[in-house]
């Protein structure tokens, strides 16, 4: 599904990614771990097209297409989704308005007919039930006045509604208490399927107790320095990143 080959990227004049190689197949969950500053969030930003980063070398293929050539909205249309580390507040726009605009933009990209208000609501209500989201969430402005946990759940909720092929979770566990983290993890697990791949970026092992990965990669100074199974996360927990 996703092939990253020799990816180099910088922010301003600082080289952050220095040759990332990674292949992610449908149905797999990959965890990317690493200390602060290792390039985890930069990788997420580059994959989704944030313009603060410039790619200096390498390529990224998503289902055979050159992902780096696409605008952020095209990537979303193709099925790439980023759950933000810091979800953005948009006062003045209700969650339901935003979600419907989003779903219809993605459907349009795929050549599918847009959903009218009634069929959209039906889809959304069903997803809310699965994720145990409060009903009033739809009417509230996007992320405004949400607690940290609510914001992260809202990201997962958007993910559930948009049904992407590749989900990238950028430190979705940061700032969450254990209950909120479990709720988020349950939401993510409900979305695991053989057609969908996930990249879970995290600093801590604890999230991986709940979202169990197929592969764990250790990122250090812009490169993947170690790859293993889920056991690698436990090893890192015991010995720290410096043990590499």
């Amino acid at each position, binding site marked *: 599904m996703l092939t990253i080959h020799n990816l180099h990227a910088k922010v301003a004049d600082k080289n952050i990614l220095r040759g990332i190689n990674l292949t992610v197949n449908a149905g797999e969950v990959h965890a990317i771990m690493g200390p602060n500053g290792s390039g985890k969030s930069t990788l997420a930003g580059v994959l*989704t*097209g*944030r*313009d603060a980063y410039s790619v200096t070398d390498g390529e990224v293929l998503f289902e055979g297409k050159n992902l780096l050539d696409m*605008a*952020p*909205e095209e*990537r*979303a*249309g193709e099925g790439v*989704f*980023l759950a*933000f580390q810091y*979800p*953005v507040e*948009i*006062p*003045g*726009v209700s969650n339901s308005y*935003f979600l419907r*605009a*989003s*779903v219809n*933009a*993605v459907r349009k*990209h795929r050549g599918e007919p847009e959903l009218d208000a009634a069929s959209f609501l039906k889809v959304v209500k069903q997803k809310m039930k699965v994720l145990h989201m409060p009903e009033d969430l739809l009417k509230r402005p996007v992320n405004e006045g949400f607690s940290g946990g609510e914001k992260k759940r809202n990201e997962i909720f*958007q993910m559930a509604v*948009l049904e992407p092929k590749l989900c990238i979770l950028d430190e979705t566990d940061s700032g969450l208490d254990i209950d909120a983290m479990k709720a988020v993890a349950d939401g993510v697990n409900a979305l695991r399927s053989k057609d969908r791949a996930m990249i879970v970026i995290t600093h801590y092992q604890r999230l991986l107790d709940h979202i169990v990965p197929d592969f764990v990669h250790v990122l250090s100074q812009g490169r993947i320095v170690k790859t293993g199974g889920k056991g690698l996360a436990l090893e890192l927990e015991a010995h720290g990143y410096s043990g590499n």
Partner: protein
Amino acid sequence: MDKTNFTNLFAAFDRDTSSRYGALRQSARERFAALPLPTTRGEDWRFTSIAPLLETPFDLPAAVSVPLPPAVGPRLVFVNGRYAKGLSSPMPNGVRAGSLADIDAIQILQIASETDSPFTALNSSFLSDGACIIVPDGVVVETPIEILFMSRPNGKPIVTHPRVLLVAGKNAQTTVIERYLGDGVYFTNAVTEIAVGEGAVVDHVKVQSESDTAYHIANTQIVMAAKANFTSHNLSLGGALVRNEVRVRFDGEHAEATVNGLYLAKGKQHVDNFTVIDHAKPNCASHEIYKGVLADRAHGVFNGKIFVRKDAQKTDAKQTNKVLLLSDDATINTKPQLEIFADDVKCTHGATIGQLDATQLFYLRSRGLPLEQARRLLTFAFANDIVNRVKIESIRAELEERIV
């Protein structure tokens, strides 16, 4: 600066017009002759030049008939300055309303005449027709009344002087929508007078949707009695050169005024909002929020004056002006001006100027919204604060449609 562009139309106008307001017109013409035209050297018109108004040869408009969709509610229609009875619809029960030409309102047409604006004097110099709505004491009107002014020049630029008189009696309640439309090049010089009686509630919405080659100068003047409650939303969408003046004067205690505005300008539009809140009496509250969205090379001006007179203790006045600039070439001049002579008051003001937030744009795009749609949605989010305060659903939908 030359007034003949307008004064040379007096004689032809009088030939075609009833003499009911002849004396009022005459004294207004004397005032117009005496008052200097505003220039950019003066503080109140510093950023708005009226030169195009003096250079365009305006004609008196011809009587024309226009097709219009049937009214959904009570409506008064004026085409090229003339009352169009056939396009208008019946007024709600208990309300005295119609054309000024048919109602003797000479005794109550006094509110705006106090202003030393030459454009107001010019409007009165052509007074004959206009919308008159009188809601007697205790009458509560639930359906909004719409007043529609349309300009249809026939080849040559025209000038009209729309006039609205709205009087809400003691404890009366009413909602009035004032709407301006047109095609081509023309000048609308409007005056609206609103008297809000003791304990009365008036909700006023002005939708300025003039053509993009029109000139629009309007003085909306409100006088409030004790315990009156007035809300105004000034929605300025069209026009090449626009000046919206809103003046509120508290004439009794414990009254409350909400004076909001939203202006959207693109291309080379120039939109000047000038507001004066005169706290002449104690214990009154005013809330003012103006928001502007300026694209391309548009130029916006906001000048918000608040006077708190010496006796007006316990005044509570709030003023906010926020502007969103969508391009590097758009400009805004914003100036709050508070003059406070009482010592026990609450007065706050604030102005912000910003651009679309890059992080919010990326967030929306990462969810599939194309850049242009994301920009429009964030623009709507900015304006929504004002849109949501408009109580009339159809107007909210109209604004949403326009922005998104």
